[in-house]
């Protein structure tokens, strides 16, 4: 059989950060083409902080304009930028002491090459044409490359800054999970029976936590596609970024016959919510073999939705609570 493709997933959320007074003033000014520092004792700190950095005690806010020119205190040439960097071509990160400030700002310098960079060099702020009320509204260039442009001021004070955090992950499917997934595609439920405690887990994690023992392929067992509703929730979906559910739905834990651990998060499609109950006996109805695919299953999350079409009542009498209550977890 062919290798299952590696699991890929993206953890993504557009965070909206409230800035508070100091970061807000800094980002407002930045949007409007100016850079602010905070006067603290006999120093000007840039970027400005809400407190005295020496003592962490509150200070009266005294924001002053600094830059747009500055001097590079240290720098590093980034030969292979990441997707999160401000430039996708090689560039420098630098510590820049802006004119009028006493401390350095960490920011990006767009230069023609590493040879254009040196400690002590002069740089100048440049504003992006499209500004987003974020620290990325500005970048720096060697002074000789600078072109000063008019930066039209925006409206109101910046109180929010957005940051879309999107991280990609990729990993091979773990050995047991692979056998579980292949079983599903073949229309079978493959669990594991602990050689020590005798407990049957599905999907197994490849070990028995009760006995603290790893399990191998020799411990695999096939379970019937029939079981008991050990517990369920009717969920009214809350809308959030990335949420695909819109209507109330059931998530059930189904204890397959012979298992000690229920299959969690099962999507119950065809049974009316008011008829659904714990103890009900159900049978898994698999999708046609050609349509079965492993979707949204990774090494931790076990969606079986691409393989099991729905669960149907077997018509048998309900199981008594003692059969399943201690397995409701």
């Amino acid at each position, binding site marked *: 059989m062919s290798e299952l493709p590696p699991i890929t997933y993206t953890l993504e959320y557009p965070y909206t950060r409230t800035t508070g007074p100091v970061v807000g003033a800094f980002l407002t000014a930045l949007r409007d083409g100016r850079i602010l520092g905070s006067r603290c004792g006999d120093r000007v700190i840039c970027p400005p902080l809400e407190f005295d950095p020496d003592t962490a005690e509150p200070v009266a806010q005294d924001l002053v304009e600094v830059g747009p020119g500055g001097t590079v205190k240290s720098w590093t040439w980034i030969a292979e930028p990441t997707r999160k960097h401000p430039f996708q071509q090689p560039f420098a990160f630098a510590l820049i002491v802006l004119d009028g400030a006493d401390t350095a700002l960490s920011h990006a310098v767009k230069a023609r090459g590493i040879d254009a960079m040196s400690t002590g060099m002069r740089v100048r702020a440049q504003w992006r044409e499209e500004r987003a009320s974020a620290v990325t509204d500005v970048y720096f260039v060697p002074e000789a490359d600078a072109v000063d442009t008019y930066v039209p001021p925006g409206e109101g004070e910046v109180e929010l800054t957005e940051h879309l955090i999107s991280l990609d992950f990729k990993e091979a499917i773990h050995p047991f999970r692979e056998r579980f997934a292949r079983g599903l595609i073949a229309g079978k439920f493959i669990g594991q029976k602990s050689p020590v405690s005798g407990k049957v887990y599905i999907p197994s994690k490849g*070990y028995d936590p009760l006995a603290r023992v790893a399990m191998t392929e020799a411990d695999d067992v096939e379970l019937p596609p029939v079981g008991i509703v050990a517990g369920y929730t009717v969920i009214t979906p809350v809308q959030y970024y990335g949420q695909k559910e819109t209507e109330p739905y059931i998530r059930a834990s189904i204890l397959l016959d012979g298992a000690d651990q229920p299959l969690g998060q099962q999507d119950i499609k065809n049974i009316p919510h008011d008829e659904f109950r714990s103890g009900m006996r159900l049978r898994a109805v698999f999708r046609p073999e050609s349509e079965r695919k492993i979707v949204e299953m990774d090494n*931790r999350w076990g969606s079986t939705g691409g393989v099991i079409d729905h669960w149907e009542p077997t018509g048998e009498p309900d199981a008594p609570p003692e059969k399943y209550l201690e397995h409701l977890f």
Partner: protein
Amino acid sequence: MSTEEIAIVAVAQTPSYRHYNDTEPSLLMTLVNQILADTKLDRHDIDFTIAGSCDYLSGLPFAFVSNVDGFGAWPPVYESHVEMDGAWALFEAWVRLSMGDIDLALVAGSGKSSPGSPREIFPLQTDPYYTAPLGFDPVSAAGLQAQALIDAGKATERDFAEVVSRSRRSALANPNAQVAKDVSVDELLKEPYFASPLRKHDLPPISDGASALLIARGDKARELTDKPVWIRGIDHRMESHHLGLRDLTVSDSTRISAEKLGLKSGPVDVAELCVRYSPEEIILVEALGLSGETNINPSGGPLCGHPVMASGLIRIIEVAERIRSGEAQRGVGHAASGGALQQNLLCLMEGGA
């Protein structure tokens, strides 16, 4: 400082894997079972358990919860978790045993960096308003720190390469190392810059792995082993997060911790330093005041295997193992967190009955 005698009585670590194709709990389970076998203890002889790990490495909020599977929690256990390197879990365990009412604590650190892209994840450790949106990553912070060292006349690129060359050669004797090679400084200096003045080999590899150890109080330690490794003190300190507010060429936090621990009141036979970027070794050696008598990073250090969240605790384990073997009598393990050595922890250890 603690007045209780507390010793490391058993240690375990996995190799540093480029990709470990199984769960993080399974890594931990192997280590816990090994420690229990080595000490002939039952899981429930252990009074307190604490682990360090990081949700973001696996891209799953609450990922740490399943790690409990690995170290055992039935019947229930007295347990805690820090979202930090296992070295800080050791700190909390050492503090807890110092209360004097319990005897044994199990400490672990684990992490799998291989599924994600650390250079894209780690900018999230930085200021969420001023630097995280720039994707400002620890490699870049290390580059700024390295350039500052050069500009201050405190180091050269050749010095960085020498750290790498020596570390990789040392790692040849470390079965848990991920990168080990006999490579000359001149060869290393032929490589192109990655984050100037750093080259790729000045960075740690991306690793998966775990580490664990067991600490015990006084008589309990002597009962469990004839070679206890006494913890003479743990001290950790933070620096400013804002690079512009720091002198990047020094590590004041490390220097102060070394003073508090009395590091120089005796010989330092071995030092395992959490050198994630080669210039960090130069800064740490100066801050610790180490001389040529100290064997520095005989394991090869994080440059040769860096399972984040386990890596700092591994430094302490590497020192403890050398004290147990008699190769060293007194040594220091160092752990670090954050860009440009923002946070540093020292654990001073000594052999003796």
